């Protein structure tokens, strides 16, 4: 069995969000980069657990990004996985990225592709579904549990208003979220080992993007908090009813 885990580079969750070049680019000065938490904590760690249970599984990591993605790829390899592939391209729109992933997944004959449910910067939640459609594979989104059973996948996923457990045959694309696994910290052995794991760099295939970012904007600042005394909760309730009109 071959598993491909897609990992994306995102700004740290505490990064200051600001823009440059006339609000057309994210200001990267002083920004720490991390593996997108959904990709790392849920997709990658669950894939590592599957491999721990069955060492015959081949586990490869994939990033579509520039050379500056390599530190986060090495960090991911320190957690686990046999090797990584980087498609050497600055990220473009979701369709461009999904096309690169689908191309690698098809060439490599992967049975299972894991993505995070979304990235914390673009919040597109589109890559998994697009990859599945490009490959003509089954797609299970918002997975909170994933197990292998009788050569099939047994997945619990979030649906509108609850969750369902379902079964599907491979090949499969799954987007992962909370519940799949618990965050891990790489250990020294992992970090040392990651340095020598293969990291293959390939050039992107030509794909026309379907969308582009025109500009970014920050939301207007809040007017400031109106404090109500702890002895006057009626005043809070009155304000919510008469001023904010929300209850």
């Amino acid at each position: 069995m071959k598993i491909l885990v897609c990992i994306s580079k995102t700004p740290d969750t505490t990064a200051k969000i600001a823009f440059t070049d006339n609000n057309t680019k994210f200001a990267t000065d002083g920004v720490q980069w991390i593996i997108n938490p959904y990709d790392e904590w849920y997709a990658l760690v669950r894939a590592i657990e599957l491999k721990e249970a069955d060492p015959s599984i081949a586990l490869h990591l994939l990033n579509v990004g520039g050379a500056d993605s390599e530190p986060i790829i090495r960090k991911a390899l320190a957690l686990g996985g046999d090797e990584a592939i980087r498609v050497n391209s600055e990220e473009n729109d979701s369709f461009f990225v999904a096309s690169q992933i689908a191309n690698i997944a098809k060439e490599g004959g992967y049975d299972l592709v894991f993505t995070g449910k979304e990235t914390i910067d673009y919040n597109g939640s589109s890559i998994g579904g697009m990859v599945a459609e490009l490959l003509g594979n089954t797609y299970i989104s918002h997975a909170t549990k994933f197990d292998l059973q009788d050569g099939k996948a047994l997945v619990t996923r979030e649906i509108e208003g609850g969750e369902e457990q379902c079964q599907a045959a491979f090949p499969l694309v799954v987007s992962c979220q909370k519940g799949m696994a618990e965050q891990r910290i790489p250990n020294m052995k992992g970090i040392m080992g990651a340095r020598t794991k293969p990291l293959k760099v390939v050039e992107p295939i030509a794909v026309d993007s379907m969308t582009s970012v025109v500009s970014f904007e920050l939301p207007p600042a809040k007017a400031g908090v109106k404090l109500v005394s702890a002895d006057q909760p009626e005043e809070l309730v009155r304000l919510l009813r008469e001023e904010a009109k929300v209850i």
Partner: protein
Amino acid sequence: MSILVFIDQADGHIKKASFEAATYGAKLAAQLGTTAEALVLGTVSDDLSTLGQYGIKKVHTVSDASLNKMDAAVYADVIAQAAGQATVIVLSNNTTGKAVAPRLSVKLKAGLVSGAISLPDTSQGFVVRKSVFSGKAFANIAVKTDKKIIALNPNAFGTETGAGSAEVAAVQASIPASNVEVVAVNKVSGEVPLSEADIVVSGGRGLKGPENWGLVTELAQLLGAATACSRPVADIHWRPHHEHVGQTGLAIAPNLYIAIGISGAIQHLAGVNRSKTIVVINKDPEAPFFKAADYGIVGDAFEVVPKVIEAVKKIKAS
């Protein structure tokens, strides 16, 4: 050129987020000088002609019971068949929309904007504003393809109703076989789903333990609200995982978010800062949440919340 709104249903009822999508579709149709039609999959007990009140002219149905189960591949296929000449497809960016829209985008070669929050600017091209950086910023996205798909964030747009009744007609579609076999379904019933709630009452580590959650649930019940929590609260299993809101949990945008004993860490704020009104109850006047709040009470939750509950009871009774 017309607009097709995909209407999501669960257990035979139209999802609230789909009424927002219908309103959005109708307004977009008015902006582009065309009409908005809708598509409903599966068996529905609601009166679909009432979608006319939201500005939908015609409702297409494929009422095959197999479609009560959501499989992204099947849904995308059937929607693509029904889309015909529609140039813009509107869906809610809920769990169904997030599963289906990307597949549909590839199938129809239609650029997708997921997480849209306002009508497109069509003065130059087709530019849609969406939420990015987990609610900390917006991006204006140009869609370059002829066909477009807009997945509208729940609670971002609101609904508007007027007079009107939509024509309802079955549409022919071939339904592909699903490769996903559902083994068990576990619906959270009787509660307001968090993603759709107008009011959310949320608790953090400041509440000290799960035995104190009665404060949160009682206030929520009085207000007809859903309940939520901060990440550590879900991690230590005081509350179920699906209540976890924030950057790595659910992002929500209710009209009113009441945070009790939550410090307001940046990762928490990322999931709730699109709420229209934020109330913070925290004993620490320096808690960062106050900076993001509209109203606040500095005080001990165990003293303040019971009083707030009494005050709400009074106002509800009057």
